[in-house]
């Protein structure tokens, strides 16, 4: 009887392996420590305001919440306020969503909670965004002239191209199809060399990391507070458990 149950339970192993994989590539790991680095977050805020707000809104994010990033209201007003005059406003974009849909084929999504919404089997939403923003390459067959390995046929162009530089894809190579005898498939052969770009690859990766860190922070500004308070709560609960346990023991000694 035990053997039958065991073998049935082991069948689960086969089922688990049958999970489907999605389009796109494996995601790189986002450097998580950047989310607790204020300098990173401030740089990310700067990049976000300069490069993203032109088309994307972050309509749940208030400018003055950036005081949590050790920025004064004055600093926010002077350096980060382009689309509005009031520091208590939310980060709306100035692009007309209808025109954006005309130009790009789809309205650029709001980025307030983008880092939470893109999590999946491949990793966290931050992993995805970090990979996505560094996976662009030139493709003249696409309407924008760009394609992206993490999001094939994406409607968004490479906004950070001036920082990273341009690169094309090497011609795909034909290899044997592992699933079909006698057939071949086209396989990705890697990126070509980077041309231009004001940042070196390491510097660019670090800046993209800052930008993604900012988006992670923006998707849940209360996160740092939550974790900090949580530690204290759990310490208190630990103490409480000890007292509740001993109180219970004292009363139950009487029960025969």
């Amino acid at each position, binding site marked *: *009887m*035990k053997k039958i*149950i065991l073998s*049935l*339970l082991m*069948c*689960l192993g*086969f*089922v688990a392996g*049958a*999970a*489907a994989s*999605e389009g796109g590539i494996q995601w790189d790991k986002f450097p998580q420590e950047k989310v607790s680095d204020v300098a990173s977050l401030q740089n990310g805020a700067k990049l976000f305001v300069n490069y993203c707000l032109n088309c994307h809104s972050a*309509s*749940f*994010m*208030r400018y003055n*919440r950036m005081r949590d990033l050790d920025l004064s209201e004055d600093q926010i007003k002077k350096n980060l306020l382009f689309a509005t005059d009031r520091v208590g406003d939310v980060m709306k974009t100035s692009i007309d969503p209808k025109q954006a849909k005309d130009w790009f084929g789809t309205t650029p*999504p*709001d980025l*307030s*909670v983008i880092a*939470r*919404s*893109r*999590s*999946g089997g491949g990793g966290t*939403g931050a992993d995805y965004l970090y990979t996505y923003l560094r996976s662009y390459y030139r493709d003249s067959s696409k309407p924008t002239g760009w394609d992206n390995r993490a999001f094939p046929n994406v409607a968004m162009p490479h906004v950070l191209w001036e920082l990273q530089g341009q690169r094309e894809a090497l011609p795909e190579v034909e290899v044997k199809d592992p699933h079909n005898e006698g057939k071949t498939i086209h396989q990705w052969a890697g990126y070509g060399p980077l041309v231009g770009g004001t940042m070196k690859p390491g510097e660019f990766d670090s800046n993209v990391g800052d930008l993604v860190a900012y988006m992670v922070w923006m*998707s*849940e*500004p*209360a996160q740092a507070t*939550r*974790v900090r*308070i*949580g*530690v204290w*709560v*759990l310490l208190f*609960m*630990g103490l*409480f*458990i000890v007292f*509740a*346990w001993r*109180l*219970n*023991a004292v*009363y*139950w*000694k009487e*029960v*025969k």
Partner: protein
Amino acid sequence: MAEFKQVPADAPLGVKLMTWVDNRFPATQLWNDQWGKYYAPKNFNFWYIFGSLAMLVLVIQIVTGIFLTMHYKPDAALAFASVEYIMRDVPWGWLIRYMHSTGASAFFIVVYLHMFRGLLYGSYRKPRELVWIFGCAIFLCLMAEAFMGYLLPWGQMSYWGAQVIVNLFAAVPFVGPDLALLIRGDYVVSDATLNRFFSFHVIAVPLVLLGLVVAHLIALHEVGSNNPDGIEIKEKRGADGHPLDGIPSHPYYTVHDIFGVVIFLAIFSAVVFLAPEFGGYFLEYNNFIPADPLKTPAHIAPVWYFTPYYSMLRATTDEMLYVFQAGVVIVALAAILKGRFGSVTKIVFAVAAAAVFVAVGGLKFTGVSALAGIDAKFWGVVVMGGAVVVLFFLPWLDHSKVKSIRYRPSWHKYVYLVFVAFFLVLGYLGAQPPSDVGNRVSQIGTLIYFGFFLLMPWWSQLGEFKPVPERVTFKAHH
């Protein structure tokens, strides 16, 4: 006024106050009957904390729900933004929101474990059938409450999950489309649906839930609690009239439950503060995208606590209907040829079986399409609903000689283990996209689930039962 209890003039203020109240409202008597002097078995174990925890989580949900309702806007254009407003701009709003979302999942974990305790110790057996039935009604209401609550954030998964499930009701013959229209308030899930789900989630279903919980507890206190040995403690009373194996709930179970509650709250806090999304199972990633009626997600799955039943729904294909038809024939033949029933009863069985046979699969196997039965989609809904409804009948399905698993034949434990294992497997598969292997395993799981219950009148009697002790097994705490 003559029956008023009098207290001396120099009695403490508290005593005077309580006497004033007790003369007009049975406050002290209620306290004593329901908790203070309610004698419960002294051998409660770990499995007996989940009833109190369920009540605690209900209170948590109601209180956090009240505060959420102060800021939430039940309008399709405003709902998603109002939730983010709560998360960012309302002081401590993020904490209230996370407590409510974690509480919803915690409610189901607690209730599933609470029900499993009932299964283990025969808590649904006579004289506690009504306690069990109220409990099953609570479970149904809880599922409705959770389903409607999930639409409120108006995310992609909220919208499309509601769309899928409400469309299932359209599969009911004759009244289906009108029924779905009535539920939705519109031809697709829309602002109208959101408004009425809000009303049901905030007031209609909670009122019914509270009423059912009160009925559940009154029914329990009327007959007294069961215990892990499954013996009736009221059968052996002491000189004071109290059960020998009973202890007053206060202070013993007050402090015992405080201990259990504190452990639960520690785990609950760990999730709320450190992992509120819980890997995308408590707060789904997809739900951070505002609902878009024009964009269907690649993979629509219900929240984790519905996945076992969702598996059974998906498992009910046209092919599966043939299996059900075969099952009906086998059961009818077994009842007629081997059962100890009168001849009239047997004829009724045969006719009923034939009717069910035709209704379920039609005469599809003849190849005449006009003779096909009702769509498999409808039967999937019936199976999904039936999986919950079958629970109501448990008191009459269990023909075991003893109440508790402790005194059943040892191999019964393996039957329960297989049942639990497959329930978990069904749950896992319900969250995955459909696959050939997954479908087969779901179908086997569905048959095992229903076999466990529907064949229980037969298998629960089999085997060597162990002698049930006279007094409860209790190890004194030192």
